[in-house]
């Protein structure tokens, strides 16, 4: 079962094979969770939404046409859920993810560097959360999911040129947010 493609698993899932869904969930839950955590800024929300994403995936499996676009389909569901959640909550979270999982056994200098990286990562995540939802979605799909412009367009329901423009606007904005106070262009 684990050797089957996403499309094959979806076909089986649509026929009610729960084992097929389990393989899909275990294959994709980490990237979906990471995407949702970065979109919402909340691990707790991301976990719930990850579960909801796969629930909807299963319930709509019969409507999926196997054409090798599973990833786009999956992230479209996840993206829509994240955006709905953000609209419902109408809040922006500024607090970076928890720092509790540092490797405390590392030598001091390594730990310092890890902390530095973590702080930088926290700043990036906070900056991401300041982006409008669609810009954030495009950046995450481009940067972390490595979707092509065409695939991002499929996820977001827009053309490749529009994706390029959104990414340009997003990166310009991110750069301004992350620029040191009083510096930058």
């Amino acid at each position, binding site marked *: 079962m684990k050797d089957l493609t996403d499309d094959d698993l979806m076909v089986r899932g649509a026929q009610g094979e*729960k084992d097929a*869904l*389990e393989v899909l*969930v*275990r294959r994709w*839950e*980490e990237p979906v*969770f*990471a995407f949702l*955590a*970065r979109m919402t800024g909340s*691990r707790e929300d*991301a*976990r719930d939404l*990850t*579960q909801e*994403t*796969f*629930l*909807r995936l*299963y*319930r*709509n499996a019969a*409507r*999926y*046409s196997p054409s090798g*676009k599973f990833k*786009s*389909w999956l992230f*479209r*569901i996840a993206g*829509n*859920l994240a*955006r*709905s*959640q953000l*609209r*419902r909550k109408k809040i922006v979270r500024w607090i970076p*993810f928890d720092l509790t999982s540092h490797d405390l056994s590392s030598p001091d200098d390594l730990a310092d560097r890890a902390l530095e*990286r*973590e702080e*930088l*990562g926290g700043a*990036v*995540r906070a900056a991401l959360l300041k982006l409008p939802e669609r810009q954030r979605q495009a950046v995450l799909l*481009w*940067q*972390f999911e*490595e979707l*092509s*412009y065409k695939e991002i367009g499929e996820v977001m329901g827009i053309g490749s040129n529009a994706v*390029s*423009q959104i*990414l*340009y606007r997003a*990166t310009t904005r*991110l*750069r301004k947010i*992350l620029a040191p106070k009083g510096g930058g262009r």
Partner: protein
Amino acid sequence: MSPQETPHIIEQIPALLAGKVSGGEADEMRRHLDGCADCRRELEELEGLRSIFASDRTPELAHSVWPDLERKLEGPTDLPALRQRRIPAAVGSALAAAAGILIAVMVESYQPAAQTAQTAQTESTSTATATSTYTIWSSLGSSLGADRSIDSMLYTQGDTEGEGAR
């Protein structure tokens, strides 16, 4: 045309960085970058941004969502009959009311000849029966409405676009 005279390629730089541009188009962009300080600075800044993203640790799930999800799939709300036949509460109530009235009329009109002498008593009884029947059907109507409420917990308003992903 020199790089300074060609239009800026700033909007295409993310694609170049992501390796989504190749062949002649990529060569042309690189030639432009060689001679255009503005675009080159943009490229360098985006590369810097990418490296910052690269230092961001990927959020990881502490535990798989599968066990919880499996329990949900086995739950009563996943019954296809409940999911597919969504009956609006108003329609359910109207159907229940109509059925109640119909049964009340049928019960009331069914009076065997032998019981003609007890008409007054029977009228009283059948009215009570009709009321009771109506109550049962109303309850059923409410239940049908309740099914919809259960379903709406899964398909929250405003985010149904996720269902029709393709």
